């Protein structure tokens, strides 16, 4: 007999060996392909949101970062180079006269004005022992010049452009009415301020604490579930009727009807952690933290998953209501399964077993929610709100948690330390 004949014969026989899979196998493949497509959509959506957020961030900050003029004189020079649709200072002076007779006709060659508004400043703030008054012009795109009622132009060190595109005009002489004639491309409001302008080089005030990190603690609790409450479904398998035995575990003559685990039920989950938060602007905060998350799900047994997670969140101030400033929270968290008592089910032998290696240890979750401060007048800020949590990565790729993503709907409470 030829050498390796045995292998050749076995190889040939095995090549012809075919088995018809259950119809359900294709259904599961189809479902998994669809879920991967869904995951791709979520990732795409996330990147789109990130792009929009970045774009929004850039839009909000770009003027102050790259368009903010270094001095008033620079600004005048810049504007002088573009005289289109501009009226001369003489015309502006006439306008000023009609609006406020106190305004003098002093002129500044080459300066241009497209609209004028008179404003009086009432509020004052004391810095370094001197009183200062502030006015802010909101949504102002450009300043051509500013002028006092006595006709003198507000000097270069008397105004400051702030990040949120407000113009602050600083006056040392507050006993006279103040007239500013600012060129505005959009709506124009001048309001008095109770707080000093940010980033003011004039005042040389200490580093703005509003932009420092604040520490806080967070707790949340709520219902947790997975998208399909049925464990990974498998057909009842009759070992004997299939015509094959089940390897070394096969018991001749024994027809095996495997049992099934019960459906998953919603259970209670909670998180506890610490975080640090800082202002990015008057409208946006960011926070990063370290939390412990216990995700639970119930079937025949109570299954807990313990995560250590690092959440990274953006907090957008939705409204400007002083008493109830609503915040939209959205972000991502990277989480690691640090422990689990979750049981797997062996359909063939009808037994429960424990194997944490089946789980995808690294998880990425997307979070969203709203926060509303309570005890707003309290020294420490305390916020409450609903939140939603979704696991982008399935809990496992095998076993009864195959393709299941974690979902949590919770109520969270956060306390920020440090003065508001």
């Amino acid at each position, binding site marked *: 007999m030829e050498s390796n004949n045995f292998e050749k014969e076995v190889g040939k026989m095995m090549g012809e*060996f075919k088995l018809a899979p259950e119809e359900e196998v294709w259904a599961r493949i189809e479902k998994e392909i669809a879920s991967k497509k869904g995951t791709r959509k979520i990732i795409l959506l996330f990147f789109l949101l990130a792009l929009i957020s970045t774009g929004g961030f850039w839009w909000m900050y770009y003027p102050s970062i790259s368009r903010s003029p270094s001095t008033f004189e620079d600004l005048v020079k810049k504007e002088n180079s573009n005289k289109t649709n501009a009226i001369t200072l003489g015309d502006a002076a006439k306008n000023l006269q009609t609006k406020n007779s106190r305004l003098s006709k002093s002129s500044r060659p080459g300066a241009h004005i497209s609209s004028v508004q008179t404003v009086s400043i009432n509020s004052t703030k004391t810095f370094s022992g001197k009183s200062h008054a502030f006015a802010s012009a909101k949504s102002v795109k450009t300043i051509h010049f500013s002028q006092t009622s006595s006709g003198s132009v507000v000097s270069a060190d008397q105004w400051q452009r702030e990040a949120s595109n407000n113009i602050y005009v600083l006056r040392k002489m507050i006993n006279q009415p103040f007239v500013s004639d600012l060129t505005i491309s959009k709506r124009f409001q001048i309001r008095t301020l109770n707080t000093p302008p940010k980033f003011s080089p004039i005042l040389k005030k200490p580093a703005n604490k509003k932009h420092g990190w604040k520490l806080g603690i967070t707790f949340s609790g709520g219902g947790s579930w997975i998208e399909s409450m049925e464990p990974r479904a498998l057909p009842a398998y009759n070992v004997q009727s299939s015509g094959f035995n089940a390897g070394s575990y096969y018991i001749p003559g024994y027809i095996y009807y495997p049992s099934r685990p019960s459906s998953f039920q919603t259970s209670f989950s909670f998180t506890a952690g610490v975080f640090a938060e800082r202002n990015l602007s008057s409208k946006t905060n960011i926070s990063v933290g370290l939390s412990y998350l216990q995700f639970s799900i119930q079937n025949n047994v109570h299954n807990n998953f313990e995560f250590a997670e690092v959440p990274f969140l953006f907090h957008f101030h939705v409204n400007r209501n002083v008493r109830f400033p609503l915040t939209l929270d959205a972000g991502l968290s990277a989480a690691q399964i640090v422990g689990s008592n979750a049981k797997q089910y062996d359909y063939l032998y009808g037994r429960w077993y424990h194997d944490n290696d089946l789980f995808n240890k690294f998880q990425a979750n997307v979070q969203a929610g709203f926060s509303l401060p309570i005890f707003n007048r309290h020294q420490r800020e305390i916020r409450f709100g609903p939140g939603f949590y979704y696991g982008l990565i399935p809990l496992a790729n095998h076993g009864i948690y195959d393709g299941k993503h974690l979902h949590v709907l919770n109520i969270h409470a956060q306390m920020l330390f440090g003065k508001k």
Partner: protein
Amino acid sequence: MHQKDFELLLKNCLKRKPAAQRELYELFAPSMLGLCYRYTKSMSDAEEVLQEGFVKVFEHLKQYKGEGEFGGWVRKIMVNTALNFLKVNKRYRQDLLFDEMPLHVVSNDDPQVLLQTKELVALIRQLPTGFQTIFNLYAVEGFKHIEIASMLGINEGTSRSQYARARTVLIEWIEKKSQTKENYGIK
């Protein structure tokens, strides 16, 4: 299926058309389930490997450049998926720990296999998982011992010795089974 029809089928699968994916699955599923069944100890595990393998096939279809037979490419994915399943699954993993043992003197007989395919598969699956895996990889898939050693993270010598032992045991079982059938006049 004609080559042109098959190429069209693959193109449609690349476009993620469900009907084409189903057709491709139906074309290869029976033989691939046979393969998965040989590596596992239960039909549900075999179907799980098949499911995972086909998802990989559809996910990575664009990586198939038309070099070599498509069936061979699918088979390779299935074998890798099965090996991964054995490594990940606790019930199999313990049996995949190979002792570094010296080569034993074993039978080099080349007996005629008088059994039916199903009976031979059943005997292969009765081997301990380590023997079963190496036997499948060497005798059926045609991998060399050095390749098997690399795939399973063992020494080449271990692969050889395990295969030799698996072969000896299997031949013994085949002979016994054939003898029984002869005695009872079963074909």
